[in-house]
């Protein structure tokens, strides 16, 4: 069975030139960096805030904050990792403003049913892409990932959807590498379990979504 590799590999040196130009106040160079990563920041912000308008604000605030603090960016790490860290913090601040009654933290630990033991062990057959329309499938995937605790969801989004390495994810979220690995495993298993339940119902003719 094959393995799955992260899918981002950016030419770092060209990017560093843009960062250095932006540090000297070259807004056109900074615009290039915005173009490079605005989609990623929008997706990450949406996953954390679960709200599109908040995600739009996060994109603007994160890029502005990054610009204002560029001088503090240490060039031995990747600009993208540094930017993600700022964006995650901005997104968490949005969440806290919207839900002041609840403390929102990526460290909230996370009492759930014992999710490490797989229960659904039937294979997906036929393929989910053939079982659902595109929009139905997106709705299921959105609902399922949004059901994860924020600390798991964010690790899954950065590692498996945005292609950061384990080390970069740890840096962006200020977590230890073992914490990233353990949350990623639990996030993957919980998502697998929930998707399996959906796909089994449809395959068995239950019809319920």
């Amino acid at each position: 069975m094959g393995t799955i590799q992260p899918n981002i590999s950016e030419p770092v040196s060209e990017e560093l030139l843009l960062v250095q130009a932006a540090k000297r106040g070259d807004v056109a160079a900074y615009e290039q960096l915005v173009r490079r990563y605005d989609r990623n920041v929008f997706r990450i912000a949406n996953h954390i805030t679960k709200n599109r308008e908040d995600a739009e604000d996060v994109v603007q605030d994160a890029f502005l904050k990054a610009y204002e603090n560029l001088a503090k960016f240490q060039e031995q790490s990747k600009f993208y990792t540094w930017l993600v860290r700022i964006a995650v913090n901005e997104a968490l601040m949005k969440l806290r403003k919207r839900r002041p009654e609840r403390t929102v933290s990526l460290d909230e630990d996370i009492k759930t049913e014992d999710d490490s033991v797989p229960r659904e062990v039937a294979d997906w057959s036929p393929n989910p892409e053939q079982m659902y329309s595109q929009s139905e499938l997106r709705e299921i995937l959105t609902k399922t990932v949004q059901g994860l605790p924020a600390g798991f969801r964010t690790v899954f989004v950065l590692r498996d959807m945005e292609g950061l390495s384990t080390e970069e994810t740890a840096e962006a979220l200020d977590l230890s590498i073992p914490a990233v690995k353990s949350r990623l495993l639990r996030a993957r298993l919980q998502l697998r379990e929930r998707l399996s339940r959906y796909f089994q119902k449809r395959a068995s003719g239950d019809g319920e979504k």
Partner: protein
Amino acid sequence: MKCSEFLTELTSYLDGALDETTKVELESHLSWCHNCYVVCDTTKKTIEIYRDSNLYELPEDLRDKLRNAIVQRCSERDKPSP
């Protein structure tokens, strides 16, 4: 390798981050343990389906609007201060 040990190593296996000895043990376990094989296979499919899902794509018109606003706000500021 027991099923519980397989679960512990699953993420590293899917990421291609296992040492050769553990990988061989894990694949040997998968060759006879059907449940673990299905868990491994459907976890891999879960990751792939999310990676290909294009959730929350940024529409081009909104993208232009946000980028213009960012550039505008950056231009109004002095260059990044040390």
